[in-house]
């Protein structure tokens, strides 16, 4: 049995589910707003052989869950008969169950959730910065400020393309030098504090890792921060870069991630962003297919 937890209509979850069914692997696919309603749990921590999961009255032992794809481990409460306070409490409780259980599950969990972190890792956390440099990557110049004016002055002073990245780990926004970029920066920073990341001049690369497989693509210079379908074009990956990506994935404990990279004119490679819930549909068709197959190999067993 493979369990897939995701937001409703998550493209990656749907594609993986199709691939696994094609391979005759039984799949349970649960959206975050139906976990509380559909997922039954009988979990004895420390005893997977005495524990089970149940979906729609079909039961599987915890040790029989071969793999899990976790695209979201939030449990959104959607039972109108309960008060909002009770709904929130129930959602927190189920989330705590998933956090503990997914970390104890003997099967492969892509990716095991990290306590206290429901979104992407704030990769500027000191520990993660150390992992990035140890893997052989560089860290771009970054400004964090509560002052919109200071952010704007810095952006103008740097005079280069920058990324606005959020502490919450939401997808970044690309700011091009000029009046339009400055206006965008004011809009984005006015609401909440962001990191301003200076993009080194050079080539944009996107590396999607699945276990020890590295799928490399190029990022168009016109990219604005959110990918459209097929926007990442597949390209050959050099041995050195592959090794760095694998090392970074391993040290961050990630089986599935997208590293947004920037190679400068001197060949140094910078990590601009890390997405632990990457959307393979952003890659061109062959690359997407390869990623889905690699994921199916991991969670379903090759």
């Amino acid at each position, binding site marked *: 049995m493979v369990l897939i937890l995701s937001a409703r209509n998550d493209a990656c979850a749907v594609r993986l589910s199709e691939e696994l069914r094609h391979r005759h692997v039984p799949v349970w696919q649960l959206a975050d707003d139906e976990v509380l309603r559909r997922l039954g749990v009988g979990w004895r921590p420390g005893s997977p052989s005495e524990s089970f999961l149940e979906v729609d009255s079909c039961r599987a032992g915890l040790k029989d869950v071969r793999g899990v794809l976790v695209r979201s481990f939030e449990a959104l409460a959607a039972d109108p008969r309960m008060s909002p306070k*009770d709904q929130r*409490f129930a959602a927190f409780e189920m989330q705590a*169950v998933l956090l*503990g259980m997914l970390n104890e599950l003997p099967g492969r969990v892509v990716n095991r959730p990290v306590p206290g972190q429901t979104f992407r890792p704030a990769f500027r956390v000191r520990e993660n910065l150390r992992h990035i*440099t140890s893997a052989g990557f560089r860290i771009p110049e970054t400004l964090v400020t509560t002052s919109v004016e200071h952010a704007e002055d810095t952006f103008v002073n740097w005079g280069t393309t920058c990324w606005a990245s959020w502490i919450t780990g939401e997808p970044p926004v690309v700011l091009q030098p000029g009046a339009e970029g400055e206006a965008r920066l004011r809009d984005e920073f006015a609401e909440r504090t962001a990191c301003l990341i200076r993009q080194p001049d050079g080539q944009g690369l996107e590396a999607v890792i699945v276990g020890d497989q590295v799928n490399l693509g190029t990022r168009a210079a016109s990219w604005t921060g959110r990918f459209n379908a097929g926007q990442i074009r597949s390209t050959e990956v050099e041995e050195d870069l592959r090794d760095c990506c694998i090392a970074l994935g391993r040290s961050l404990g990630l089986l599935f991630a997208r590293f947004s990279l920037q190679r400068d004119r001197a060949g140094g490679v910078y990590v601009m962003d890390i997405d632990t819930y990457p959307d393979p549909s952003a890659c061109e068709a062959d690359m997407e297919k390869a990623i889905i197959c690699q994921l199916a190999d991991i969670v379903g067993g090759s």
Partner: protein
Amino acid sequence: MTSKGVVIVLGPLADPVTAYVCTRLFARGADFMLVDLRQDRHLLEIRWTAKEGCLSGFIRNGSRTVAIEDVSSVFVRQVEPYDIVLALADCLPVTFVNSVPSFGSNSSKPFQRNAIERNGFHVPKTLVTNDPVEARKFWDECGGRVIRKSVSDQMSIVRGVRGEDFERLALLRNCPTQFQEYIAGIEIRVHTVGERVFATEITSGAMDYRYAERERVPRRMRAVQLPTEVADQCRHLASDLGLLLSGIDLRRDPEGSYYCWEANPMPGFTFFENSTGQRMGDAVAELLCRV
């Protein structure tokens, strides 16, 4: 050795622990800056740049500005996740009481269980379920001596499960619950502050001693000395969870075995210090001021 840097206290002054830590820092003559995000948000300005592994910038709160390189330690309490001050805090190579990633382990009590067992404590037989039949089976297995409590760090009162509760058992479908075998014995709350260990024995007729007044039963607390081995286990557990300050809930059963329920990353130690006189606030201040 005492630091000459500035201690940043991130927390609301209305919180007794935050206020108490400030008074203990003041009593030591430590240089500290309180950042009360509930009161002073509009006065706060933070900026820093990271380049080639070096950080530079400042934190300004009203009329006071502290350069980032002058910050020696940070005390964090009741700060919203994803606040910018936490992002800054996460980047600084200084002492944190406690670091932001370490807060998370308590968000799932069963998640902490591995670390608890790894460090040599007994753990009670546990079932986490939203299945009424399984809950009933567990209750029978434990001879009806079962308690229930939250799975997450959401506040809940520990209660015993009684026969009459089974009338409402169908409600379990709405929300998974943690059931544990009841362990008779003496409650001990242990606070670790760095390497220091403060143990408080609590005697109370209430199932959850925190709510003894509500149940109108007496509660007595006294400072006790733990066996060396158990004190070491507490130190190792806190260290394993990345906590420089922790509140560890233990129970010593009649045979002398120590069971551990959980480790709280943001303990309200003033509640215990008020009753026992254990100088935990001073220990926290000392830890924050140490190089």
